[in-house]
């Protein structure tokens, strides 16, 4: 901290007027960009808390809620659709991430061995899939032929391993010195013991990164569900959101058991939209400041050679 301050003082003396003007402009520009990233999100949050009637007649960005009302949240939580979507998404995230991380760690461990005759060949086999794929239809047919249509497995298995994450994991496992494992091998430990007792504890940070990558991707995923799932009781949250925004159809989320009159009018439609956005996004927005540094770390491991 001190060092930085000293540097600042030294620079200040030398700074020309132009340089100082640049600094000020730069600071303002960065503030404007940051605000532009924040404003839409704040707008949505404020709108979701607003009085629906005033909201309907309002135009422009909201800087604070218009009045205060939790009516929208009441509507969406009064009805099962959003709750079921929530539970489904949590199910997909938990089991999906579990399957993904187990497969990824196993694959990365095997591919991080240096004395493997077929190591490079398998690596090529994996990497090639990042640059070429069969396309949507053959993929769809394969998954369907495996009997996964309208099954929860269709959202977990076909996207379980990302070649990109596997490569990040492998890179980081390669940094663990070979001598550690060799001495364990000599002591008679098997590969599973080494993986479990030596590698995993040392690679904890990277595993956390990969878990987060998978979890956020799964939380935000909607497309596979939209092509494979027909049964509404298996819909993840994002697919329900898609219905609301794209088809502009709020009927499923706002059908209240007690009162159905007037609730699907434009007044409530808008409110319900904002409330579902907030409900679906808040968990990620709440946690991301804590885990963004791990994401950053993951990108950096991925780019070591870049």
């Amino acid at each position, binding site marked *: 901290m001190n060092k930085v301050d000293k540097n600042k003082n030294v620079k200040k003396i030398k700074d020309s007027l132009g340089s100082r003007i640049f600094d000020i402009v730069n600071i303002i520009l960065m503030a404007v*960009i940051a605000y532009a990233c924040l404003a*839409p999100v704040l707008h949505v949050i404020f709108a979701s808390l607003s009085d629906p009637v005033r909201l309907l007649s309002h135009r422009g960005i909201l800087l604070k809620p218009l009045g205060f009302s939790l009516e929208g949240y009441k509507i969406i939580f009064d009805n099962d659709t959003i709750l079921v979507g929530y539970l489904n998404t949590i199910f997909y995230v938990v089991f999906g991430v579990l399957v993904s991380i187990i497969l990824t760690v196993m694959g990365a461990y095997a591919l991080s061995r240096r004395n493997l005759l077929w190591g490079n060949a398998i690596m090529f086999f994996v990497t090639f899939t990042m640059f070429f794929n069969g396309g949507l239809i053959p993929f769809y047919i394969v998954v369907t032929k495996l009997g996964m249509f309208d099954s929860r497995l269709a959202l977990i298995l076909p996207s379980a391993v990302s070649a990109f994450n596997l490569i990040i994991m492998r890179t980081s496992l390669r940094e663990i010195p070979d001598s550690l494992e060799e001495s364990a091998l000599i002591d008679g430990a098997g590969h599973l013991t080494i993986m479990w007792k030596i590698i995993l504890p040392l690679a904890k940070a990277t595993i956390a990164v990969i878990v987060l990558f998978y979890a956020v991707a799964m939380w935000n995923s909607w497309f596979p569900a939209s092509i494979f799932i027909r049964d509404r009781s298996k819909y993840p949250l994002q697919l329900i959101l898609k219905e609301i925004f794209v088809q502009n159809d709020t009927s499923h989320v706002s059908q209240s058991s007690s009162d159905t009159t007037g609730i699907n009018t434009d007044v409530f439609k808008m409110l319900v939209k904002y409330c579902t956005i907030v409900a679906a996004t808040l968990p990620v927005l709440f946690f991301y400041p804590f885990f963004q540094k791990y994401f950053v770390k993951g990108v950096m491991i991925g780019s070591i050679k870049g």
Partner: protein
Amino acid sequence: MYVETGGELPPLHPCRWGNIVNITTIKKDFKRNWVVYLIALPVVVFFAVFAYAPMVGVLMAFQNYQIKGGFLGSPWIGLKNFTDFFKSYYFGRLIWNTFILSFYDLLFGFPAPILFALLMNELRSVRYKRVVQTITYMPYFISIVVIAGIIKDFFSSNGAITLLLGSTSNLIGNVSSFRSIFVGTNIWQFLGFNSVIYMAALSGVDQELYDAAALDGAGRLGKALHVTLPSIMSTIIILLILRIGNLLTVSFEKILLLYAPSTYSVSDVITTFTYRKGLLESNYGYSTAVGLFNSALNFLMLVTANFTSKKLTETSLF
């Protein structure tokens, strides 16, 4: 996938083919490493089933594929699906839309995070820098469905941005503004996060280089141009190659969520056309042919970009 920022670029050099096909070496290796191969098996099976089986499946492109007959029972029709596509009214429009959307996205979306990182690098307060970073990463974590919902809302006929621009029409449903909105919101969403990798590269620049430049009389602009930029050049080139390799995939999901029949003339791209033909109209063979055409074009561009870069700058992916 938009996340293709970086990625360790794994060695693609040929394996030791001599050893790989030598039976005694294979036996020896297998005896020593069979457990390791067993551990690798699930992942190999995964890619075989979900990545390579569909690649074999592209042969459907040469069939009049029927779900009933399946892969083996459907009639082979040669190149008919391809010629149908090339001759169709949509061919020119799809190619042009795909190309121009990707091109604008590259032209504006690629330099933006670099510029942003360079400007951020000039900020003197570490704490301010961190706050700006955290806030600008945020849009990256929001799901594309929600992003699309917010875009539709903000650019609707009485949306916040429409008002700001002094317009009263539904801009996202407008042929003349669809592309700008698409590219602009992409920049907005990825600006912060895509700058991460450049920030990482910038933090590795040797301070002595700056001191030397200062001695030579370089000002801040001079240092940025002659020290900072060259030292992150190889990162820029690698990311550019990757980006070009993915050029024609555009952001398929985002277009799917944002487009409407009224904007098809500018918004319909090859991948969305594949989706409609294949999954909505069950025209499997034809759709696969279009998809294969797209994948092949993509792959060709990746190889060309890589080759050009290797010749010109000696930086390459493989």
